[in-house]
């Protein structure tokens, strides 16, 4: 400690436990929390009074009370410690004292360390520029939240107690954050600037690698996100395994039949399928070719042989071609696949009603080659198989397990920047 700092340490005897507690900012300190039993003492008067008696072992702090050193060019000492929370977030605040420069705050949360320098005058407000501290501009970044004191230790310049609440507002500037804490009619403003872990370690005289309790940017960014990503990737891999384990399709048994374009609807039983599990998906494949600018409507019914319950399914095989100012185009597919979810156990007849239609529409140029319509009957192949992969389920589940780490990474980056 440099010679220009006059230590003002005074020993106080705790009236609750009898412990000898050092008061480091005598003359400035109003309340003191016993480091042995946690009782809050009123030290504003010569007679030390007990404000609230506690019998709680003092928490082991990462930066012990009494640690002193030089921080940003000012020699100061840690005299108090508070743990506070607001809106589900918890952070730590160390009260630093220098007899000539007064108090400032060393704070630690999930994003790292910051230094809070208290303002002696309120910021100036200009409607078009926002809040001004000197030439630095600040604009509101959050709505007011209520912060609660969860734990307190050491000495303070006001009568602090666990459960004390203040209303907090923050304002973002280019290089710093402006914080305002309101309690009753009193407002306390502080400018908060980021600190490197090494600066805090140098100040407290400890190895920066030993400071694990207040994660710096690296731990915050890669510690949480890495754990989340590993869990998300493992869950995704297991989901892929589940898909391949449970997807056990039966061999398709193709059946052929013919339909006449713009002719009568054909109805026939094309297949039989047996489902052995209580609930299984079914896939119905259909295929036809040798036509253009036509569609084949396929209405399937799965009819349970025992109960006569039916499940109706629709499919369409269609293919169109043409030519316009952009050149030739084609659309559709000769193959169609329809999946039916959760079909109950049983043996089912697969009945299909098929009808082929030529396409024509008003205002739409006719096909470039009118002969492209099929002139003869079309052969349609249909097969029903058990099993289906619902990739929509997979993508939904994948989003559920990967979105949290990605959002966490994104917001932590935004917060840091």
């Amino acid at each position, binding site marked *: 400690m440099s010679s220009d700092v006059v230590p003002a340490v005074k020993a106080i005897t705790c009236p609750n436990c009898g412990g000898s507690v050092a008061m480091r900012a005598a003359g400035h300190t109003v309340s003191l929390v016993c480091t042995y039993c946690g009782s809050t003492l009123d030290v504003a008067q010569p007679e030390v009074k007990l404000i609230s008696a506690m019998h709680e072992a003092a928490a082991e702090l990462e930066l012990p009370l009494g640690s002193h050193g030089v921080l940003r060019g000012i020699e100061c000492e840690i005299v108090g410690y508070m743990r506070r929370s607001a809106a589900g977030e918890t952070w730590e605040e160390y009260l630093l004292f220098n007899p000539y420069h007064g108090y400032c705050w060393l704070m630690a949360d999930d994003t790292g360390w910051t230094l809070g320098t208290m303002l002696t005058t309120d910021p100036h407000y200009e409607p078009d520029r926002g809040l001004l501290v000197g030439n630095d501009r600040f604009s509101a970044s959050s709505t007011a939240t209520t912060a609660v004191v969860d734990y307190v230790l050491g000495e303070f310049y006001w009568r602090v107690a666990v459960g004390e609440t203040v209303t907090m507002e923050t304002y973002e500037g280019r290089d710093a954050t402006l914080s305002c804490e309101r309690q009753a009619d009193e407002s306390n403003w502080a400018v908060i600037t980021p600190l490197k872990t090494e600066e805090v370690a140098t100040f407290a005289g400890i190895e920066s690698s030993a400071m694990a309790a207040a994660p710096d940017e690296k731990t915050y960014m890669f510690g949480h996100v890495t754990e989340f990503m590993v869990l998300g990737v493992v869950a995704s891999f297991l989901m892929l395994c589940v898909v391949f384990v449970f997807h056990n399709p039966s061999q398709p048994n193709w059946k052929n039949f013919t339909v006449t374009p713009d002719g009568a609807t054909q109805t026939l039983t094309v297949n039989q399928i047996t489902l052995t599990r209580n609930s299984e998906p079914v896939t119905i494949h259909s295929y036809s070719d040798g036509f253009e600018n036509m569609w084949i409507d396929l209405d399937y019914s799965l009819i349970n042989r025992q109960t006569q319950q039916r499940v109706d399914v629709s499919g*369409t095989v269609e293919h169109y071609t*043409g030519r316009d100012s952009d050149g030739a185009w084609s659309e559709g597919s000769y193959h169609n696949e329809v999946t039916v979810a959760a079909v109950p156990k049983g043996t089912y007849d697969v009945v299909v009603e098929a009808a082929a239609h030529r396409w024509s529409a008003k205002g739409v140029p006719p096909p470039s080659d009118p002969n492209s319509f099929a002139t003869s009957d079309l052969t349609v192949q249909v097969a029903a198989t058990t099993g289906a992969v619902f990739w929509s389920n997979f993508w939904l589940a994948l989003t559920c*397990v990967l979105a949290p780490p990605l959002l966490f990474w994104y917001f932590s980056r935004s917060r840091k920047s």
Partner: protein
Amino acid sequence: MRTSSIIFGVWCAVVLGVFSAATYTGNSPFADAGRNDIHGYGYYGPMHK
């Protein structure tokens, strides 16, 4: 492991469990048995035009 990671691990396990059950029973909130393929548009013919 942090509490948040444990909570996220439990969340992943729940998602995996629901996904496995849905895959085993062949359930999907998106499977409509082809009802939306063409009839959803209310129009037969190329969508190109």
